[in-house]
């Protein structure tokens, strides 16, 4: 029997509603009526722009600004359908693989599941919870970065504390690279979920893109009443979803259930008994974490193998951020006594992890811990950092990127980690005294990231301290440090002779006329990465000095200067054979013709020229 569906669209009301502090929520109502054999109720579709940006992992712009910052993703679009590099869009901090090529980048964690590509995320709250039918993302520059869209059951604007928070994946895909940088409307087919949502999360991966991706707005379309299954195609039931959502990481490595009768003592594992222990361990080392945990429940032999602490020297829980809880950490604890590298980035938000669970885990596993990634971990507080400082004496790498809810006094505990070599404090609220104290004691620092640390009052003093104490410093990220002057920079390059990477983007107080960039070039012959983004004083003499003194240069960004000519760039490209990245966006003397000429002469260099038309 064929069922005929007839659909009528009515535009009942089109009204602009003024709501929210950022932009407006456009609501349009279309009544969808369908007739089957039985009369079905009319459901109304609601269309909304994002009301508020709630959380994100990084952005290009300055804190407290509306240029190139993530807050631009809320509200109505400002740029779409135009394409170009505009201030009114949301831009992430990085793109491509340039940052992964740097020495400051940590090696990837083993056992990362193949479907997990996410590098950055942003969470958006909408006004009304709906059952989503469509999610549209308006990308206005170098599209193709979105790899996952998720929906949350919790209403972020309700006063109640979050309980039973569920995240469903509406869509996931691989990172793509669209052939042109032009704007597009991205609207993948999303899964239909069983709960209403007004909290969406976009995860992105820009590694295939030629430049920063920029997003303008997100539109959520959905229905208020739970849709009858007949109105939509039957959702494909994913078997792994059924087992995953309930049992998996909420019960990670649950206690082994003894099956069958315990009377038989024979070790009847068949051929497995003939395999050397190390070989089974090698095989298991290729399994992802959930598979490893499930396998542990299959038989005693495999339980022994799967719980062997040698399988857990590296542990990345970031791909499972949505489902990680105190209980999961508790179950993993016993296996992680030899843990060396731990990735808890993005986990624990909305009360999923607490101080108790975290500190119990750290006490069990902290002794041999060398690397700890805690990017965007908003559950962290003063007490958590104190626990880290007490339980991880061997810690060499600590990443607190975008932990912007950590109180300034929490950072003082870091100075107890005297073995630290890599410290990332991007977008944190660390203050002057804490950073100076850290630099006094952590003298083995090789990589330091103080990007967008707006609470540090005097960067010259910080630079001076770095020069005095951290002689082995190899890379330092001072992106948007607002008051570093030529004095501080001179001390830094004189003291830290091993510097290879230096990010001084958007530092407005550095003036080329003081000779600071030329002095920098002469002092750092090993220089491989130099970002002077939006320093409007960079001039030909600086480029020529770099050409003369820094033959190992690989990445250079001189966005936005009017003073650099094509001739000096040619000299640079000739003298630095290893150059891979040169960003000359918004350099007035370098037009597209010059860029094309240089690309022709130096095909190995990716020359970036952004546009706004």
């Amino acid at each position, binding site marked *: 029997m064929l069922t005929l569906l007839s659909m009528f669209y009515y535009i009942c009301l089109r009204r602009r509603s*003024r709501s929210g*502090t*950022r*932009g407006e929520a456009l609501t349009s109502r279309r009544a969808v009526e369908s007739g089957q054999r039985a009369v079905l109720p009319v459901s109304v579709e609601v269309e909304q722009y994002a009301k508020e940006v709630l959380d994100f992992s990084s952005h290009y*712009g*300055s804190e407290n*600004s*509306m*240029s*190139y910052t993530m807050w631009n993703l809320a*509200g109505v679009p*400002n740029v779409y359908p135009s394409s170009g*590099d505009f*201030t*009114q869009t949301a831009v992430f901090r990085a793109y491509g693989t340039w940052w992964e090529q740097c020495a400051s980048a940590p090696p990837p964690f083993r056992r990362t599941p193949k479907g997990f590509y996410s590098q950055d995320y942003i969470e958006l709250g909408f006004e009304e919870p709906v059952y989503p039918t469509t999610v549209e993302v308006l990308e206005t520059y170098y599209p193709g970065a979105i790899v996952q869209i998720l929906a949350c059951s919790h209403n972020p604007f309700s006063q109640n504390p979050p309980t039973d928070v569920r995240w469903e994946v509406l869509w996931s895909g691989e990172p793509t690279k669209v052939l042109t940088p032009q704007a597009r409307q991205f609207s993948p087919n999303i899964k239909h979920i069983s709960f209403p949502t007004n909290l969406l999360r976009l995860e992105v991966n820009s590694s295939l893109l030629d430049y920063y991706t920029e997003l303008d707005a997100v539109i959520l379309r959905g229905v208020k009443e739970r849709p009858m299954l007949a109105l939509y195609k039957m959702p494909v039931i994913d078997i792994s979803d059924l087992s995953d959502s309930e049992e998996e990481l909420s019960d990670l490595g649950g206690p082994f259930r003894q099956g069958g009768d315990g009377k038989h003592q024979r070790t009847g594992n068949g051929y497995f008994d003939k395999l050397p222990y190390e070989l089974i361990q090698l095989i298991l080392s290729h399994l992802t974490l959930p598979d490893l945990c499930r396998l542990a429940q299959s038989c005693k032999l495999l339980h022994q193998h799967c719980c062997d602490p040698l399988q857990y020297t590296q542990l990345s829980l970031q791909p499972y951020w949505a489902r990680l809880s105190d209980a999961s950490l508790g179950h993993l604890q016993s296996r992680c006594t030899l843990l060396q590298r731990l990735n808890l980035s993005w986990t624990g938000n909305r009360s999923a992890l607490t101080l108790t669970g975290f500190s119990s885990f750290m006490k069990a596993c902290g002794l041999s811990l060398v690397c700890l990634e805690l990017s965007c971990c908003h559950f962290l507080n003063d007490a958590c950092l104190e626990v880290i400082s007490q339980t991880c004496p061997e810690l060499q790498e600590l990443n607190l990127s975008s932990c912007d809810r950590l109180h300034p006094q929490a950072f003082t505990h870091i100075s107890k980690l005297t073995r630290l070599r890599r410290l990332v404090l991007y977008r944190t609220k660390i203050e002057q005294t804490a950073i100076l104290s850290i630099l006094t004691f952590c003298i083995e620092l090789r990589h330091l990231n103080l990007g967008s640390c707006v609470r540090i009052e005097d960067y010259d003093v910080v630079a001076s301290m770095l020069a005095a104490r951290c002689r082995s410093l190899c890379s330092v990220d001072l992106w948007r440090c607002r008051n570093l002057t030529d004095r501080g920079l001179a001390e830094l390059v004189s003291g830290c002779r091993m510097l290879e990477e230096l990010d001084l983007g*958007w530092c*407005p107080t550095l*003036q*080329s*006329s003081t000779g600071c960039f030329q002095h920098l070039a002469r002092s750092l012959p090993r220089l491989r990465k130099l970002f002077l983004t*939006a320093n*409007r*004083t960079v001039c030909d003499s600086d480029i020529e000095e770099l050409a003369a003194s820094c033959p190992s240069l690989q990445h250079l960004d001189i*966005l*936005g*200067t*009017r*003073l650099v000519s094509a001739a000096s760039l040619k000299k640079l490209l000739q003298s630095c054979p290893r150059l891979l990245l040169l960003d000359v*966006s*918004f350099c*007035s003397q370098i037009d597209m013709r010059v860029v094309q000429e240089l690309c022709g002469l130096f095909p190995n260099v990716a020359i970036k020229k*952004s546009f*706004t038309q």
Partner: protein
Amino acid sequence: MLSVLSYGRLVARAVLGGLSQTDGRDYSLITASYGYGKDFRKGILKKGMCYGDDACFIARHRTADVLGVADGVGGWRDYGVDPSQFSATLMRTCERLVKEGRFTPSYPVGILTSGYYELLQNKVPLLGSSTACIVVLDRRSHRLHTCNLGDSGFLVVRGGEVVHRSDEQQHYFNTPFQLSIAPPGAEGVVLSDSPEAADSSSFDVQLGDIILTATDGLFDNMPDYMILQELKKLKTTNYDSILQTAQSIAKQAHDLAYDPNYMSPFAQFACDNGLNVRGGKPDDITVLLSIVAEYTD
């Protein structure tokens, strides 16, 4: 007896209701803009409200109506910089700040400060300078908050008389206070005033008050009495008549600017300072004419 009481109650209720209504109702500004670019370009809406090197914006938010004018300093043209870029970008940025609610109605200098800061956050290396005048009407409190940096400004007219006006800020003759972004190395040579140097004022407004916000192209060519004469012709509070009046004011100023024999306020001021000149002052003219009315959706 009963009827007197019930009447009394009705009257009391009406009076009280009426009183609370007029106190509680929000005000708003009905605004029209018009202008002339100096090189005879008429008031074309290029890039959203730019007249020559002048720029302006009209924006509304939940709590306030905001207007702004900016007069781009023409001297930059001699150095290869388009003077209209700075003023236009400044005004568009301030408009966006207002629309997104990133401002406090009672502190318009904050809008200038944030707007100027945002200009520095632009990847594009902007150069240039301009004056700026911002007028904010707080809808609920019925107060007008203003700030003025340079020689643009505003008038408030009530009952045919000027009750408030802004003061010009000049460093020396024909050199007003200005926000600027200078090319590197020229910071010592180029005038750059801080947004905090702007003059601020706040005062109550009443229904029917007329607010005229304009660049110096208007005030240098039309003395107050002429402006008031034009404003007397404004009878109704609908947008079309406001636009008509704004157009006639701008046109008159434009005509006077090119009259070589007319003793303009600019010429008068020059004479007072020892320069023997006559005639109008050709300049970009931007006029924003607003009336305080009751707020309707």
